[in-house]
């Protein structure tokens, strides 16, 4: 092992292809999709689906392979998450709202991949790897009364022994892609519910709810500040019955040690840096655009001048660039740890806290620096600012991620540092 920043060529090639897709299928439609909220980004979806299907098929094929015994070759560092990071960054450079409509399992798929049994993985994830028509996955955790404090979740799952089914009741909100997953495709939603309200967080479990399940209904899609191309759904579960083995993790409640909940929360370690990656893409778009427009006005950004020789604008741009790079490197580190199959809870929270904050600031600064044109809907800078903000909110707000960092560096439990 040695410290290196070398992105393998085949990974870079994929990122370049993602950038091309962003240029051809996302940017030209960006404004229109933002102005017409909830319009489906068909051109992007149609063109990207065969690519995603192929990628997901490869992942699934690996899962389906029986574990090989005997001599094991020294495992090479995986590039799975690195590829994903750079691809997401580039697609979000194209359009972060449209990126969220990327066909596939999304956060729901990630949860299944992280904590599902091999059988569950094959059963649930197959739909994201085949067919002419794409499908989507989603994750439903938030409720009207339970945001960052997931222990306040009211949705219940009661086991019906006779029918060998779980019966879900409750209301979920802010479910990204909920409508795509349930109403517009043969997708699935991973729903968080309590199997024992008296057990608090230890009683929380994720359940796979498939499209077409009776008693599951999308009741609303939010109108939002940004990422308007992506649907954010409210879902009502009214005696929704799902098979017994649609529970992810153990159906037993272990009151000590957090049990299944803790394991399931670990999916966030994998998904947070991917949200950071999306933020980075918006930051990159904003910064590149500002530099391009400044260059047209003969304002050049130099990397050699002492502070007193920099104009206020140059200082701002350099600060944006340094901050974006810092967020990029923190994200890269969290991602590489994932690919090395090492714990990354601290690093993942760091990347998300940093990227969410600085990309929000960068995109806001871009609007400022571009003056009357920055604020105009003629250009995309104002849209990127609106798109950026969500990255400091979903998958754990900046504050929640900072809290996780604080607990890790201090060695405190959530009880000791609330």
């Amino acid at each position: 092992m040695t410290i290196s920043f070398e992105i393998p060529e085949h990974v870079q090639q994929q990122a370049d292809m993602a950038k091309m897709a962003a240029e051809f299928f996302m940017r030209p439609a960006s404004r229109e999709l933002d102005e017409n909220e909830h319009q489906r980004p068909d051109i992007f979806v149609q063109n990207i689906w065969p690519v995603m299907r192929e990628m997901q098929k490869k992942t699934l094929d690996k899962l389906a392979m029986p574990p090989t015994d005997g001599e094991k070759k020294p495992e090479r560092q995986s590039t799975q998450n690195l590829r994903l990071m750079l691809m997401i960054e580039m697609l979000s450079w194209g359009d972060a709202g449209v990126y969220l409509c990327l066909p596939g399992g999304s956060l729901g798929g990630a949860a299944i991949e992280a904590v599902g049994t091999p059988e569950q993985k094959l059963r649930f994830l197959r739909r994201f790897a085949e067919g002419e028509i794409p499908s989507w996955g989603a994750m439903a955790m938030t409720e009207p009364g339970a945001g960052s404090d997931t222990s306040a979740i009211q949705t219940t799952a009661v086991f019906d022994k006779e029918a060998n089914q779980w019966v879900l009741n409750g209301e979920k909100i802010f479910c990204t892609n909920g409508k795509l997953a349930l109403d517009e495709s043969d997708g699935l939603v991973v729903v968080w519910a309590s199997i024992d309200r008296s057990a608090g967080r230890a009683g929380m479990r994720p359940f796979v709810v498939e499209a077409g399940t009776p008693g599951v209904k999308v009741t609303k899609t939010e109108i939002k500040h940004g990422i308007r191309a992506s649907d954010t759904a409210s879902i009502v579960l009214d005696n929704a019955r799902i098979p017994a083995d649609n529970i992810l993790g153990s159906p037993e409640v272990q009151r000590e040690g957090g049990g299944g909940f803790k394991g399931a929360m670990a999916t966030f370690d994998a998904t947070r840096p991917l949200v950071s990656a999306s933020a980075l893409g918006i930051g990159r778009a904003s910064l590149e655009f500002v530099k391009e427009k400044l260059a047209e006005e003969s304002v050049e950004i130099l990397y050699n001048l002492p502070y007193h020789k920099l104009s206020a604008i140059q200082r701002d741009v350099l600060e944006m660039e340094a901050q974006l790079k810092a967020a990029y490197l923190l994200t890269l580190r969290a991602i590489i740890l994932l690919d090395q199959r090492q714990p990354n809870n601290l690093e993942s929270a760091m990347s998300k806290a940093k990227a969410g904050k600085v990309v929000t600031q960068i995109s806001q600064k871009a609007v400022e620096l571009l003056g009357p044109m920055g604020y105009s809907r003629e250009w995309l800078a104002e849209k990127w600012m609106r798109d950026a903000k969500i990255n400091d909110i979903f998958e754990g707000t900046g504050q929640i991620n900072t809290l996780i960092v604080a607990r890790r560096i201090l060695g405190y439990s959530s009880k000791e540092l609330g």
Partner: protein
Amino acid sequence: MVSFTPTPEQQQLIDTVRRYAANDIRPITHESDEGGGFPASVIDKGWQIGLVPTAIPEALGGLGEMSALTGALAAEELAFGDLSAALAVMTPALFAYPVSLYGTEEQREVWLPPFLEEKAPKVTAALLEPGIFFDAHDLKTTATLEGAKVRLNGAKAYVPLAGDADMMLVYAKNSETGGADAYLVGRGADGLEIEGEEKLMGLRALSTYRVKLNDVRVDLPSRLGGAAGFDYQVVLNRSRVALAALAVGVARASFEYARDYAKERQAFGAPIATKQAIAFMLAEAAIEVDAARLMVWEAAWQLDQGQDASKAAYLAKQYADKAALTVTDSGVQVLGGYGFIREYPVERWLRNARGFTTFEGLAIV
């Protein structure tokens, strides 16, 4: 492939420097800062870790392993001990590295072997200049060619250990080309005036000097790199990476101290670290330290790959300069009133960190 794990050799070096910082530097930082600096024996021991001889070309008896990344790893650990001590230990490199990289064959053969000795040669380099508008790319010190001689004029500041130095590398603007030259100037040169020790806000355990050059005449062969000169930008890049790595070390020192303090200090019936107001300051400090370090590593890696690291080095230094200041300020804040008392180290780290936006050319990897 991207990875953030040092090589086993680098890890060994980190451990060695960490032990040196903990056992030799830390116990005497306070008194060294209050007056007198570090004892020569402590700085000698730092020299004996062998950072510079490793970088000297193999042909001359060194190991020929000049890695900016390895240098940056060591620099962070040294500064974690103390910034003044770190700069004192690293001062010989200010002379040895540019000569290693760009010296003519003759210059290397003559000037480098002393760096393989048990004791460090007494050398330094003069880059910074007094005045509020210093610009490394527009030096006010001039070098004017006069036949086979060169005439140097100007004033230098923050020249570390110049009081004892037998030789120093002086950076000056070539009056003809406008580019940067560097000249080897011996202690006794006519017109070279080492003024009194500077009195600074921080770095109080490091002796730095103002140096005046009044028509100092040097022979042409003492021009670094001879007629070909040298790549000033690379020297600046290496210096920026070194200083940024040192800034990370200072910031980390303050962060770790404040973190440990906050877990001990009781208020309202609990350790103050259990309050989000304190815990968040510490969390943000941890993020900034890590972010700055990653930027340093990337720039250092680019240098080692032979890539143009100008942009990465500039941004890393800009970032680390700021991070060091905010993190060390938080350190003082977490300690409250005690933070303001000189018996506690956090105020020293704040004073030292404040200097990084000024420092240029004080260290090199």
